[in-house]
């Protein structure tokens, strides 16, 4: 860290840090502490009842089949979406590496899905997925296949939302991995080719290992993102049918803002906080390593 000079003025620097510090304290530190405290109380907004109940909320939420389902859904979502996005991202980055005619317009077009508002994306997929008059089922019917309940079948709905996520975020994985590829010096491949290594040999022994930090970054960013997924679920299925598409964020929303069980919602939020902290640990470690 470069420090300006010895005469530097502590009052001035404290003063200019203070506004951001206060906003961060108010909007993030205080709410987190508040959530921790609330989670030890039975607290319903409607009945105005506040009672200390120790760890009961945690035990209730932990054994709540709805929360377990939401947690499992979130993990399923994170796993399938991340594997697909990273896998496709690597594939596309390798296929579209190097220079070719129209590369810039092609790349700019390919990142459209991540630019479009999530709500607009949800809207058009909801239209395409519609059971009776959606395009997908129309195609299936015209091929004499049974229509699929994309968003209304319990065993299908989560996958349908994941497909939307894959459509939206594969470009992101593609771009980041491609940026990583660009940073590999050409000489490495040339010398390796001279040694007689084939394409796949190069891929597994050179390219993928060098790309591992980019791949890890995408995996972490996508996992972090699935824990906050809310808008897509809200717009496409509202957690249904049943609770087959409820994610942890949606569960907290329902507990807190539909049933007003603030204590239970806070306990659920803390469980999420713990998982995110573990991911954050790796993420921050990685970033700090890069910073130094």
């Amino acid at each position, binding site marked *: *860290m*470069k420090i*300006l000079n010895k005469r530097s003025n*502590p009052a001035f*620097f*404290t003063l200019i840090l203070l*506004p*951001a*510090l206060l906003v961060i304290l108010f*909007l*993030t530190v*205080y*709410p*987190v502490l508040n*959530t921790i405290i*609330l989670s030890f109380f039975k607290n319903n907004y409607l009945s105005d009842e506040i009672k200390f109940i120790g760890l009961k909320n945690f035990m209730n939420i932990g054994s709540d089949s709805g929360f377990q389902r939401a947690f499992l859904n979130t993990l399923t979502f994170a796993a399938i979406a991340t594997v697909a996005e990273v896998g496709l991202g690597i594939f596309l980055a*390798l296929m579209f590496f*190097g220079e*070719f005619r129209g590369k*810039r317009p*092609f*790349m700019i*077009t*390919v*990142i*459209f*899905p991540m*630019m*479009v508002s*999530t*709500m*607009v*994306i949800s*809207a*058009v*997929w*909801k*239209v*395409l997925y519609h059971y009776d*008059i*959606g395009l997908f089922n*129309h195609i299936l019917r015209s091929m004499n296949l049974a229509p699929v309940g994309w968003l209304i079948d319990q065993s299908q709905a989560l996958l349908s939302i994941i497909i939307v996520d894959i459509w939206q975020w594969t*470009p992101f994985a593609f771009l*980041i991995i*491609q*940026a990583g*590829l660009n940073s590999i010096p050409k000489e490495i*491949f*040339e010398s390796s080719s001279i040694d007689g290594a084939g394409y796949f040999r190069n*891929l597994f022994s050179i390219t993928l290992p060098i790309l591992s930090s*980019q791949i890890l970054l995408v995996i972490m960013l996508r996992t*972090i993102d699935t824990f906050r997924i809310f808008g897509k679920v*809200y*717009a496409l299925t509202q957690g249904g049918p049943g609770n087959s598409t409820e994610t*942890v*964020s949606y569960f*907290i929303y329902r507990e807190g*803002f539909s049933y007003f069980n*603030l204590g239970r919602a806070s306990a659920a939020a803390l469980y999420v906080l713990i998982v995110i902290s573990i991911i954050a640990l790796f993420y*921050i470690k990685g970033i700090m390593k890069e910073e130094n």
Partner: protein
Amino acid sequence: MTGSVMGRKGLIFWLLMAVVLFLVLFPLYWILITALKTPLENISPVPSLFPSVISFENFFNVMRSGFFKNLFNSLFVAFTSTFFSLVLAFLASYALLRYKFPFKLNVVFLIWVLVVKILPPMVLSIPLYTMFTKVGLINDLWGLILVYQVYTLPYCIWMLFGFMKSLPLEFEQAAEIDGASKLKTLTHVVVPLASSGIAATAIFSIIIAWDEFLFALLFIRSPRLQTLPLKIVSFITEYETLWGDLMAIGLLATIPVLFFSGYYYKRLTEGFSLGLK
């Protein structure tokens, strides 16, 4: 991977490109033609790939339903929250870069900023909702601007800190030797040097706020204060089959953002990936 390994671009390459472009563009094409179809054609059980009559009825409907009010709300909230975040983040980043605070505050602060960046906002929503209700900032665009600092402020701090790290110290020292005050050095020397970083940060921060849905849903009650994502959701959930209107709003809300696509690509490939999302 390089030309020597991959060989020339053959038929398969161009075919794959066509498939990728099709997959990317088809849903966007569907937004466009659904917006241009008549409401009746949109609920036909046999979806047509091209509108039989091009109709702007949906767009007129949308504009009559208060679209401009929602557009204004979205723009106002996105730009204002970004403005505040930029000012606060710029000052804070500068302080963190140029002054060593006691108790390792510099590192602690930056780590917390990162934690907030990856925290699901839902985790904060209940205490924030209670707080904002108490001070009467629910159902108020200023309340939304304040709560959006949860997203935009950590984002701007992280991005600007990254940009400003590479600024040379000499200009500031020269200004100081010339007798410029600290504040004057900041506004006349550091701001111009960091301007490209500030612009990039502003654009991404505006997009984040423009896209935000959760707090808008929780904090805004009256339709006249709705931002565009809320308006779109109300169309999805309340009027199931007004698809033409829905897609018309979607199209209007999307076009401004697509213009940034080229810029986004440039930034991402230049290696600013860490600051994103």
